[in-house]
């Protein structure tokens, strides 16, 4: 889910920028990457997960502070309402209201699915510091379906601890909105595609309200996340992202 936040934040920062024509690829991606850090957000979102075997919709409330901290609490469906995930300092805890217990996600399960979606636990925590972990170059610049875009090729730096072989990122030039990101595995095979859409004003900023994650090997499966409300730069302390808050069933 972090990519979501990051993309989101990236958009936020970039939004007000003018006269950015001469930015380097690195600087452009930095805007896409840097934004969430230091800023806080709070919002409601729905997540629609479609798999071969079932389909479900979850409503969740999300708080975040920088890229280090976030808290997600399910509000629906009723059966799982109150279930919450805390991400702090690269660790994940899940709170289970039914048994009133908190479970820390073991390192071996970080590649596993988060709440049955196509996002992994790693997606939630991996500090996606794109400019720090990847070498960034412009692979294409120009017109795509009537829209002027940049297409970036991100290759991991030798020492970076990342799971992807490389990434491709398409960003709209007019307002720095990301359009899609493609994740490739180490063999260069497309692993999944994230598509951004419905660029609307939420919390006073232009954001892609919908993010759609589609695994390449399962064409009929997808996870779609839609922000319903969103507010930025709210009053959130680090202390909010604690196990106490996690276990408080609000």
């Amino acid at each position: 889910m972090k990519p979501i936040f990051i993309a989101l934040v990236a958009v936020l920062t970039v939004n007000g920028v003018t006269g950015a024509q001469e930015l380097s690829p690195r600087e452009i991606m930095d805007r896409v990457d840097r934004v969430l850090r230091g800023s806080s957000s709070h919002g409601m979102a729905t997540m629609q997960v479609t798999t071969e075997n079932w389909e479900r919709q979850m409503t969740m409330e999300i708080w975040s502070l920088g890229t280090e901290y976030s808290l997600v609490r399910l509000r629906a469906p009723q059966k799982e309402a109150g279930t919450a995930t805390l991400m702090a300092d690269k660790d994940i805890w899940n709170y289970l209201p039914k048994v009133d217990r908190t479970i820390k996600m073991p390192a071996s399960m970080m590649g596993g699915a988060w709440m049955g979606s196509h996002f992994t636990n790693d997606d939630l925590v991996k500090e996606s510091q794109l400019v720090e972990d990847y070498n960034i170059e412009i692979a294409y610049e120009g017109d795509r379906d009537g829209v002027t875009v940049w297409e970036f090729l991100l290759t991991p730096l030798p020492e970076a601890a990342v799971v992807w072989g490389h990434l491709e990122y398409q960003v709209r030039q007019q307002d720095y909105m990301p359009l899609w990101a493609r994740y490739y595995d180490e063999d260069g095979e497309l692993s999944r595609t994230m598509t951004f859409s419905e660029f609307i004003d939420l919390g006073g900023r232009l954001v892609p309200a919908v993010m759609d994650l589609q695994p390449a090997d399962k064409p009929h499966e997808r996870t779609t996340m839609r922000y319903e409300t969103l507010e930025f730069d709210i009053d959130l302390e680090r202390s909010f992202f604690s196990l106490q808050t996690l276990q408080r069933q609000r």
Partner: protein
Amino acid sequence: MSEKPWFRIGWRNLGRHRKRTMLTALGLAVGYFAAVFTIGYSEGLMAEMVENATGLVSGQIEIHDAEYRPERSLYDTIGGRDGVNVTRLLDGVSTDPGVVAVAPRVYAGGLISSGESTSAGMLMGIDPERELTVSRFLDELVDGRVPEQGRNELVIGVEMARQLAVGVGDDVIIVAPGADGSMGNDLYAVSGIFRTGMPELDASNAVLPLADLQTLLTLDPSRIHEIAVTIQNPWIANDTAERLAAILNPDDLDLEVAPWTELNPIIVEFVALINAFYGIVFVIVFGVAIFGVANTMLMSTYERRREIAVMLAMGATPGSVVKTVLYEAGAMGILALALGIGISLPLMLWWNIAPIDLSRLYGDLTVQGALLRPVLRVELNLAYWIWGGVALVATALLAALYPAARAARIPPADALSGL
């Protein structure tokens, strides 16, 4: 001329130096014992490996939905999405005369957590009564008892218990993605702790009653992943599996009936590899012995140079001389074989009937994913005893070829004139 005198000469030569003959024969006999024991012990290990690979947890035949392996998806239950009449299917399998016991199972991945510790585990849903007749790993628990249905109980392996720092009576939380996409979670009490000796299993398996696991996973009671079958002995698995497939197929279920040889081909290959190795055992053991025998035969013919020269001078053909030496060696071989069987039989019978516990020397170990208990257990396989005997006599004869050829070429005049 009859063969008898040549044989008599050979036989009597053995008595010339009784100690030397006995030592050489003893060397061959010990070689025979070494070969028979090495093979018998290794067959014992193989039998143990197959028994544990098939009887400890998995079963000698497993029945799944055709789609189930290798992904082992939660959704690929027997009979597909609609499930199956489990009792009727189990009864159907039980009708085969080769089948001793059957047990249904449900599998799922999940997290098992207690306090600060969480481990990823394999959840195994069992029918406690039936399971005890199929697999052995729950027979003797380290602590506690088998879980009872409807009481949110489970048993875990010793290693998992250590990692989670829980004992019998403590609560653990299980979190598992359910069949409807929800995150199933509940509290369970540890009713017992098992130990298989296989580190992976002891660290990752959590076993709970089938119905309880189905509830956690929101899986209908008619949906199971596996039927484990125990048969009369592991070596009839292939035939029995074929029969079962024939019995079950009219039910219109897309089933896979897999014998352990298919589920665990590595063990089959391993057994084949070890069998091929037995030939090498013979070559090594008797390859060493052959030089000892050759040395003895060379000495015994050399010290009889004059005698052989007289025989040749009196008209014996070189072929006859060769014969006497070969008869001598052959007789020694048979003597050694008798000695060898005399040494091997009591020891091997002892280790076959009452295997020696070696656990003081080394602990449990696993080979190709199968547990081996540290016991000196040997199998008695007549074929290898016969092959060993043939190899022993052949060794003695082979060792005598060169000394015999040399003896036949002794120049009578030179030898008799003392040169």
